[in-house]
């Protein structure tokens, strides 16, 4: 891969992260309506002295730029994101770290299942275009694509947890239970994970299938596929060795671009199932107007998405020599 390509991608990502940090600052510090009011929340009977002390205490008496901005960037880089109001003054970084694991587990697995299923379904429908799998698969993909994740989750919860009683209705493990061994723990976790995981995978599978289908159809019309067929290769071989590797290329980018949207799904699915991840944290912080935590969530998720996009760009550069300029 060319050094110029690498440098340009990394520079773009760094620029975007810088913009995110700047936006975070502007959003929370420079909004009309004075930050000390937000700091003090809806506390009644705030006197002028309290306001003044708060301003000095938080450095709000200094000019916005450069003093406040430099202090903000400095502490952000050091990983100091301030303190949560709702979690009784615990550092935001600590609150976020505690919630990161469950979200990564749920959405890492969900993405994996959705990508595998979606690509397989899309490839098959594109290959057998107009067939029965294509007909129903495409319709189902479109409907799943139109369904908000949380609605899907509520439906699954209603049918499989409340109705059939196959799975627990909320949480990550049964509250207050003790386990005889790691296997029992995993079984309990798995039972709690099943429905949220199914929701995430089903929510994502539609768009991957739609993209893969059109990508396969486009690739199958290429000259090199016609050549392969003219050489007398069997259809299955043409698909696996000639069409699929090229058709897979656009999905790399889509998976990364999608992460930004997946975040919205992540938040709502976790809320439906009371999954103790970043999503429920966001909604709790929102209703408590716990701005430092909201700010931390935005920073963490944005940077994660930007980095994922950078990785996808680099992977794409390795896979497809045409873009290495």
């Amino acid at each position: 891969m060319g050094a110029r390509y690498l440098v340009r991608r990394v520079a773009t990502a760094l620029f975007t992260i810088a913009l995110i940090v700047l936006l975070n600052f502007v959003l929370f510090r420079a909004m009309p309506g004075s930050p000390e009011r937000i700091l003090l929340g809806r506390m009644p009977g705030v006197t002028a002295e309290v306001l003044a002390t708060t301003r000095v205490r938080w450095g709000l008496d200094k000019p916005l730029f450069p003093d406040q901005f430099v202090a903000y960037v400095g502490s952000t880089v050091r990983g100091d994101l301030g303190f949560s109001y709702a979690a009784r003054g615990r550092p935001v970084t600590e609150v976020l770290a505690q919630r990161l694991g469950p979200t990564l587990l749920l959405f890492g697995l969900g993405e994996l299942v959705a990508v595998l299923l979606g690509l397989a379904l899309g490839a098959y429908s594109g290959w057998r275009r107009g067939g029965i799998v294509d007909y129903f698969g495409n319709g189902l993909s479109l409907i799943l694509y139109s369904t908000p994740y949380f609605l899907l989750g509520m439906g699954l919860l209603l049918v499989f947890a409340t109705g059939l009683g196959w799975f627990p209705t909320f949480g990550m493990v049964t509250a207050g239970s003790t386990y005889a061994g790691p296997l029992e723990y995993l079984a309990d976790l798995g039972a709690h994970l099943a429905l949220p995981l199914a929701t995430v995978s089903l929510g994502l599978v539609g768009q991957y299938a739609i993209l893969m289908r059109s990508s396969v159809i486009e690739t199958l019309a290429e000259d090199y596929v016609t050549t392969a067929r003219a050489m007398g290769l069997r259809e299955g071989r043409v698909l696996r060795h000639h069409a699929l590797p090229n058709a897979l290329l656009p999905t790399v980018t889509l998976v990364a671009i999608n992460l930004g949207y997946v975040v919205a799904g992540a938040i709502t699915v976790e809320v439906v199932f009371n999954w103790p991840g970043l999503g429920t944290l966001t909604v709790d912080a929102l209703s408590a107007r716990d701005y430092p935590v909201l700010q931390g969530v935005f920073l963490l998720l944005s940077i994660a998405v930007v980095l994922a996009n950078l990785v996808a760009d680099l992977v794409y550069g390795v896979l497809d020599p045409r873009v290495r300029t």
Partner: protein
Amino acid sequence: MTAPAVPVGAGQPAAAGPARGAGQFFRKLFARPDGLAGFAILAVFTILAIAPGLFVGSLQTAVTATGPRLGPPSFEFPLGTDELGRSILNLTVHATRISMVIGFLATIVTVLIGAVLGIVSGYVGGRLDAFLMRVADFFLVIPTFVLAIILTAIIRDVLGTGSREVFGIRLSLIVIVVVIGITSWSATARIIRSQTLSLRELAFVDRARVVGASGGRIMRRHILPNLMNLIVANAVLTFAGAILTETTLSFVGLGDPFQPSWGQLLDAARTIGAPGLGAWWYFVPAGTGIVLVVFAFTLLGSALDDVLNPKLQTQR
């Protein structure tokens, strides 16, 4: 690259004559099953949204509610009741109006910002173009939903929305409209810009410039009319996204209980634990409404895209 679908005639903007081509346009659109189905579904929901009172009477409140608490569907309450005894049928039909109106307004704001920035960026070019597209890319990459949550919360705290209304819509919902516009214009801007870039190079734009038309006039009178097809098709797809975003924002608690949308009803259903209580009637109607409307917009949007922009469509 072939020339874009623009009649290069006598230095005049393309006469996209609504009167002349309307009949043919609708025949073409309705000849496609996706166009017809999408249009039919949306027609039904539009009628419900325009006159909800005609079908179910005025919106029930905790005071005017007459039903049992969280009652299942019955003869008197075909879709059951909520935890306050209000008829779910009544709530869902009225929510149609809120969801559709918020979606509609948010689409207008989104497409307006996107089209203006896209045309200016593409026509003016240079540094301004580079800057605007950097900003657009930024919004495309970051998780805009989290930004939308934060923006809505901050703007509401700053404005102190209370019970003020604008055109009969509560200010808290207007905030949602504006926030959706701010966070979702970038895709539209990108598409419009790329089409403006190729329009800019055509002979009729050159001629207008030679006879002394200003940049603003060229953009308004010569570029914009030729983009209308693209803008309409894009607006229909944006509508679907706007309804989904509004629903999701309401679901995380940013809706307005006094003017409930479908998302607000789903949030209320989740809050009282309707799925766990087996109260399917609380959220299935609103959920069906969302899926049908978004599905219909997606169908109609792709049909419009093919009918209006035949040269832009890719192989299917």
